[in-house]
């Protein structure tokens, strides 16, 4: 049966929009390549910003000012204003559906300081904030009886044309369990598939599933994608495993130390600055550590229980008595699908929200605590906009061609003789990106990475499957994910090469200053000769 709103992705952004669309009275269907509670959102630890001022003086205005400062001129002021003004409503709504936020002694939602914030603003649930928010949203979806289909992998969006204008009317997916291509027709589609930081492979805090599938499919369907060169490096991931240690550890007073035990930077500056300071030290040959020993066992167990567990498990050290070895790795991608003020893309009926979308609220560098906030505030907005659109939708839907194209695509992959091992290439891509498109880049490093990408792309006709079975073939889904990441890698690189300046997370060693000429968004388009960049307001 056709739905009114089809949502691809069941992380925080997908589930909030599902709840809001359902409440608008339309038929909602959610599709995920995993299960809802396995999404990247579970890994958000630090908190969600809202200027309640429960711990000390705070205001919406300072939240806006901090966000804009960190965005380095690339955020849209109206969008940021909307985000920050809606923040307290968003958190109160989460509280009303049962999120177990940590509390203060006077029974208010507790707040803590994250980098770049002038006040303790992040509401949290120990260091399990994302986990507890996502599970509560999932429970809310159960209460409302929202249909969620698990283990369906997005292939492409179904579009039809009217008066020479394309409009979306569903999506084709691979049912991972059966190996069959399925078409889901819908009056509107919301993309909520997350970011693309897994391009960096093991050099990322992200889940292995954060492969940017929705952004790549949106690009293929003709939607515009922007600001792809802005990739945030989280200053503190565990050195050996890239597992995230929350910024709240520094917010609570944790220090960054070099091999001599010396502090070398302001630990609570925005993430781009802290990551660069660490990078400078590491290039001098220093090992870098996070020190939270002085916070004491009681505090650590109360506020940072997950961090202690992760450090013990993956680094064999106890943060109560030991220094935590860390390094910065890719963590969050600011770029994404271009949307208007109703979260709609260039394609009618195709909406986007969460990390895959570019609502222009993070600009060149996202503030900690603003990503969970974004998915609630804009999830609500997009759920309502897509419902409004769907209610007025009256065009024909014909999914025959798209279904055939997707089936042919799967068959074509299965027909390729496997001469080149994509797992090896995936690792290569990650290492080249970490080294050449990392915390610092320059023209030479970027051009060299682009050359590598082009070489791998040229090998695609020889990259096939070693496992050709139908049922739950992850060799197949991982190959399609890899191909999506290759497409996005090119978009990141052409954007990074075109932006001949340094701004926020995009730091060019050959052009270390901001240049007003580039105080504008990088748009990339898919053309016959490849992906080309353009700048516009």
């Amino acid at each position, binding site marked *: 049966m056709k739905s009114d709103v089809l949502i691809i992705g069941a992380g925080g952004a997908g589930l909030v929009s599902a709840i809001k669309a359902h409440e608008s009275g339309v038929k909602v269907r959610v599709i995920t390549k995993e299960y809802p509670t396995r999404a990247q959102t579970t*890994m958000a630890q630090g908190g969600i910003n809202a200027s309640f001022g429960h711990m000390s003086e705070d205001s919406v205005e300072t939240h806006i000012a901090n966000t804009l400062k960190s965005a380095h001129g690339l955020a849209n002021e109206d969008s940021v204003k909307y985000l920050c003004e809606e923040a307290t409503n968003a958190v109160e709504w989460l509280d009303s*559906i049962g999120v177990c936020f940590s509390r203060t002694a006077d*029974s208010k939602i507790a707040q803590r300081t994250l980098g770049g914030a002038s006040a303790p603003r992040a509401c949290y649930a120990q260091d399990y904030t994302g986990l507890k928010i996502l599970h509560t949203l999932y*429970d809310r979806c*159960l*209460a409302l009886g929202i249909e969620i289909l698990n283990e369906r992998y997005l292939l492409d969006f179904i579009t039809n044309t009217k008066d020479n204008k394309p409009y979306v009317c569903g999506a084709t997916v691979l049912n991972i369990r059966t190996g069959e291509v399925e078409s889901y027709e819908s009056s509107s589609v919301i993309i909520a598939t997350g970011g693309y930081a897994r391009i960096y492979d093991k050099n990322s805090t992200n889940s292995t599933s954060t492969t940017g599938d929705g952004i790549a499919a949106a690009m293929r369907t003709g939607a515009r994608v922007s600001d792809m060169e802005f990739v945030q490096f989280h200053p503190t991931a565990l050195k050996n495993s890239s597992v995230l240690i929350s910024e709240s550890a520094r917010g609570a007073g944790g220090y960054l130390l070099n091999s001599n035990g010396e502090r070398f930077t302001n630990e609570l500056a925005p993430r781009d600055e802290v990551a660069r300071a660490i990078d400078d030290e590491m290039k001098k040959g220093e090992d870098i550590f996070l020190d939270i020993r002085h916070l004491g066992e009681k505090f650590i167990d109360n506020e940072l229980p997950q961090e202690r567990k992760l450090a013990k498990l993956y680094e064999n050290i106890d943060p109560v008595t030991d220094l935590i070895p860390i390094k910065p790795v890719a963590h969050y991608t600011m770029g994404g699908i271009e949307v208007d003020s109703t979260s709609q893309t260039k394609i009618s009926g195709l909406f986007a929200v969460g990390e895959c979308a570019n609502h222009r609220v993070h600009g060149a560098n996202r503030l900690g605590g603003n990503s969970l906030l974004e998915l609630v505030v804009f999830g609500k907005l997009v759920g309502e906009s897509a419902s409004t659109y769907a209610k007025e939708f009256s065009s024909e839907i014909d999914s025959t061609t798209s279904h055939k194209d997707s089936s042919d695509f799967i068959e074509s992959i299965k027909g390729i003789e496997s001469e080149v091992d994509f797992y090896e290439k995936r690792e290569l891509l990650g290492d080249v990106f970490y080294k050449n498109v990392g915390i610092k880049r320059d023209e030479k490093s970027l051009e060299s990475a682009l050359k590598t990408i082009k070489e791998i792309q040229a090998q695609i006709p020889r990259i096939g499957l070693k496992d050709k*079975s139908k049922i*739950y073939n992850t060799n197949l889904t991982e190959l399609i994910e890899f191909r999506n990441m290759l497409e996005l890698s090119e978009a990141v690189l052409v954007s990074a090469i075109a932006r001949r300046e340094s701004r926020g997370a995009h730091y060019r060693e050959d052009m270390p200053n901001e240049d007003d000429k580039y105080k504008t968004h990088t748009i990339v388009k898919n053309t016959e000769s490849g992906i080309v960049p353009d700048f516009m307001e």
Partner: protein
Amino acid sequence: MKIRIKREKIVEYEVDLVDATLLEILTHIKTKQDPSLVFASGCKSSVCGSCSMRVNSKEVLACSYKAKDGDFVEPLKNVPLIRDLVVDMDKAYQFNFKAKTWLSKDSITPVLSQDDEKINEIQSDCILCGSCFSACPVYSVNEEFLGPFSLTRVWKYVSDKRENDSKSKIDNIQTNGIWDCTLCNECTMVCPQNISSKSDIEKLRSKSAMAGYTDPNFGGFGGGFGFDGSPSF
């Protein structure tokens, strides 16, 4: 080290990784030795609940278990097998729906103290990995048992000060619910988040007793016999 994995047949792999998690071993096998091996994974940091499986007959998260020579790896129990180490969790998760694991009504002005929040802090740490579900022996006799993670979730909401209709939640778990548990504690032993569903079920039992419910396995007309006909004590 040698690792044996239960697939269609039991397959032995030799991997030279030191101090590695089982997930690292499985990823190594898939990307370097045998791409046809199938398992689920996600966060690699024990919070997404994807990579639960059994090692030497005990449930673990592959990402937080350090593999040892001779380990025998199997999929979870009590859930349909899809392929290799991947199981279908749909029906298991459906028990959350049946158990109504949500806040009944939106509360407009929730005021929770620090103590109120601590009541169900540990229950809200659940990652739905399904380890408890796999370890639970009740499923061999009652496939409709609401099960450990769903009942922990019910306790999470029943004990929440914002819940204003805990009575209907209690009413809903009397059949195929709290009284079907044998209190064997297997769920507690395998939980990666240190949650004890057994003790949550005990708390739900006392709450039920306060609401006037009695243990159907005791007294009554049927005599002192449990669901499987064996005497209950």
